[in-house]
Every structure is written in C-alpha cells, then in structure tokens.
C-alpha cells in the first residue's frame, strides 16, 4: 500500500458504529477490527474510492495533524486492514 493506492471494501464486510467506536466485521470469517473516531473517518474516506493521498487531504481538513503523521497513519491502517482481509487494493 502507498499513497497512490485505492482500496475497495469487500461486499461481505460490514461496519457498525457503537458508542464512540466503529466495529468492522466479516461475519463469514469471524474477523473483526475496532476503530476509534479518527480511524473510522479514515475508513469511511477509503471506502469512497479515493487514493490514500486524497484520504490524507480530507483528513487534514478534519484534524490538526502534520501531513507526515497523517500519511503514516493512513498507510499503516490500510496495511492492517488489508492483512485482515477487510479491504483489498482496488
């Protein structure tokens, strides 16, 4: 995964918000992932078909963080979710 990557969310993966957190779940495999509010925003933006760089652009408008930090966090989250099968490269 790099900043030019786009990701897709497999059809069988579902997301629900509970309290301040979001749970991503693939019920067929029993895989799940919990996200805080910042992670949930990244996830939603990734699911809109943007490149990871564009996800960072949008995140910069929402949060006070350095570009460098955002890029690192977005790519790291995308890698983790791909490793769990909860997203794939588009």
């Amino acid at each position, binding site marked *: 995964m790099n900043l030019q990557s786009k990701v897709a969310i497999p059809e069988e993966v579902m997301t629900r918000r*509970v309290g301040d957190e979001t749970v991503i779940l693939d019920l*067929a495999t029993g895989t799940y992932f919990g996200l805080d509010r910042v992670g949930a925003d990244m996830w939603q933006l990734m699911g809109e078909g943007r490149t990871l760089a564009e996800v960072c652009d949008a995140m910069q408008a929402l949060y006070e963080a350095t570009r460098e930090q955002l890029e690192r966090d977005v790519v790291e989250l995308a890698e983790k979710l791909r490793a769990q099968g909860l997203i794939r490269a588009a």
Partner: protein
Amino acid sequence: MDEFALEPARAQAPMAGAPFHVWVFPDSTPWTEFHRSGRNYLLRFPELADFEVARDGRTVRAWPAPGVTEETVRHLYLNQVLPLAQSRQGKIVFHASAVEVGGAALAFAGESGRGKSTLAASFAVSGARFLTDDGLLLEPRGAEWLVRPSHPSIRLWEDSQEALIVAGTPTAPPVSYTSKARFLAGERVRFCSEPRRLHRMYFLGAGAAGAPRIAPLRPAEALIELVGHSFLLDIEEREQLAAHFDELSRLAAAPIYFRLDFPRRYAELAGVRAAIEAHARAEGVTA
C-alpha cells in the same frame, strides 16, 4: 412455533458436496457439518443424526443414525439444533446461561468449558433460579431485552455434579455422545419459568484470576463478544447477517456488559456468587 419431527433411523449417506461450514472438536474432528439441502439446511452430526432445518427455521426433522437413541437425538436438537434454527427465525441466541437474581436476569457467556452451566447450577442450588444453561434466547421489549426460559434442565460434567448436586436429584436418561448428565429442574435445582429482563451479561474468562474480577466492556468490545458468542446457522446470507449485526449493535449499546474471571475451584463458588450478586446489585438491580 418450533416444530420437531423424529423420523425413523437411517444410515448417513455421503453428501453430494462439501459442507459450507463445520464445527470441529479441539482435535479437529468434525462435530457438526452444515450443508445446504435444496432451500433448506442439513446439519450432520457424524454417526449420531442428520437434522433438516427448514429455511425459515420453524420446522426441524431428525433422522437418527442406526443404533442412536431417541433421547440422544432430542438432546442434540435442544442443545445444538434448536438455537441454530431459532437464528433463522431472526431470533438472537447466545452461547450463554442465565439466572434470576433480584427479579432480573444475569447471563454468563462463554465457550464450551468456561463454566456457564456450573455457575448457573451453583446459583440454582443456592436460593436463586436458573433460566437456561445454554442457548440464551433474547427478545426485545421496548428499550429492554427479555431472557426467555429454555429447557428446565442443566448439563454438568461429573466433577461439577459431585460438587454441586445432591444425590437423588432427578436426571434425564443418559445420551451417547457425552458423559455430561442432565439434571432436571425441581426443588433442588430451581428453575425460573417466566421471562426476565436482562440486567447484566458477563463474559467468562479462562480462570486465570486468583479472586473474582469483574471489569466493564466498552460498547465496541461488547459487540465483538456478542458476535462471537451468538448462534448463526447461515453465515453466508448477507441480508440476514446485516440484520443480525444491526440487532447486536443495538444490544451492545447498553452499558450492561462485563468480563468476569474467577478461580475454577468449587470451594470458592460461594464467594464468586456473592461477588456477582454484589456487583449486580451495586449497579442497581430492581425487581
């Protein structure tokens, strides 16, 4: 309405295709194979019985394997097949036991071997009443959830029987696939036959704690636990999965979920019960 029909014994013919899902024993031996049969489901318990569950989960037919007793098949139906069939009816069923304390229900969820039944039995022989020893069925009522009473019996391994059950307590006939005995509710093992409001749900730890330990779960943590402990027959049907996930998310939003761990020593069960009751009451159990 759940309809159950026991058909004549028949040999288990090889299935046409691979199962879409399998439950296995810890040694990887298949325990339950989930097959599709036309629009219905066929659940095979190797060398024990085949169960055909209608697509809507309302009717179940069972064919014992030759030599397997009717009692064994009914036992499998009640403990394994009925909760799965109920999940097809859109009902919410968990691998959990429940007891009535202070007029409300406390549930104990955990995988096999975590002590759900032992804990429920411990309450039921000590002044409280049990609602179910597994297959916890919840129904929404306004903003609350009701625990439905299930079969009035508790299944226990021999060591728990010796520690908790007095001699002469009535039992159901033995079955061929487990050495667990099934104790029937009565004066010694008290049963609550009316629905009760779910007040707390405790997820049982592995027994690493040296003393009873109770810690709250965040809603997201509760949701993950609820998903992991729910019965689901068809894990491939997206529409029903989405509805199931919605229902569990609603359920998880209530602040009633805790991790519970305690040492697995029978001599300490009275202290464990006291800790649970104190915790539940401190959080405001009302009749």
